[in-house]
């Protein structure tokens, strides 16, 4: 867990974001079947500066390597969009990308 790909593009004041988070998203039952450890993202938060622009609580029933598309307003080109992920073990990872 940990890697993510972020793409953010601003047009007419609306920032369109595509973000892919690498995670197996294996819930307890699935992990048992595959004989791996349960690993999934539980919480995703996206921020520009201190402002929260995206927030989701997730479970292991999201598809593997969840790809999330969304759009928001209130940011401009060059601003930095950062994502913080929390997984089921409580580990967090942060990555950021400039809005194009």
């Amino acid at each position, binding site marked *: 867990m940990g890697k993510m790909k972020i793409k953010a593009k601003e047009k007419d004041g609306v920032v369109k974001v595509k973000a892919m988070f690498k995670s197996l*998203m*294996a*819930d*307890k*039952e*699935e992990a048992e*079947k*595959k004989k791996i450890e349960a690993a999934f993202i*539980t*919480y995703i*938060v996206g921020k520009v500066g201190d*402002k*929260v*622009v*995206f*927030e*989701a*609580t*997730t*479970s292991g*029933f*999201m*598809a*593997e390597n*969840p*790809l*999330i*598309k*969304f*759009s*928001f*307003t*209130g940011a401009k080109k060059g601003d930095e969009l950062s994502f913080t992920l*929390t997984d089921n073990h409580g580990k967090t990872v942060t990555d950021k990308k400039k809005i194009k």
Partner: protein
Amino acid sequence: MERRKFLNLGLVAAAAVLAPMTNLNAVDFREAKPDAWKAEKSADAIKAMFGDGELKTTDKIKFVAPKLAENGGSIPITLSTDLDIETIALFQDANPRAATIVFSVPEGQKVDYSFRIKMRQTAVVTIVAKAKDGTLYTLAKEIDVSIGGCGG
């Protein structure tokens, strides 16, 4: 400094009083509503997450999902609406637990989310959205799954 401190105290106190009922932003729903994530059935999960409020069926929320999903491991879902939504959540009856994803919509932002979910079998997917004024909207769709995802 004194005055600032005093004001801050007031703000903190006000926030503490208001927090449970109004601003759910910046809340990890897994910590805030642990029961909702354990419920097996959508109905129970919705109750644990949003309370006993009346659910209004709506067509103002756009919920795009395939009628027939060939691969249950990756079902694309799109949610969008112009309503003033505070929280929007997806539940399904296919997997061991119903709650799948809960978005807290930040202040001033519109709902426009695309993502993918896993489903073990054919089941009904329910969307519940809580508007800023507290109204609960819901809509549901059955998705046919030909090959189950989720390791099934």
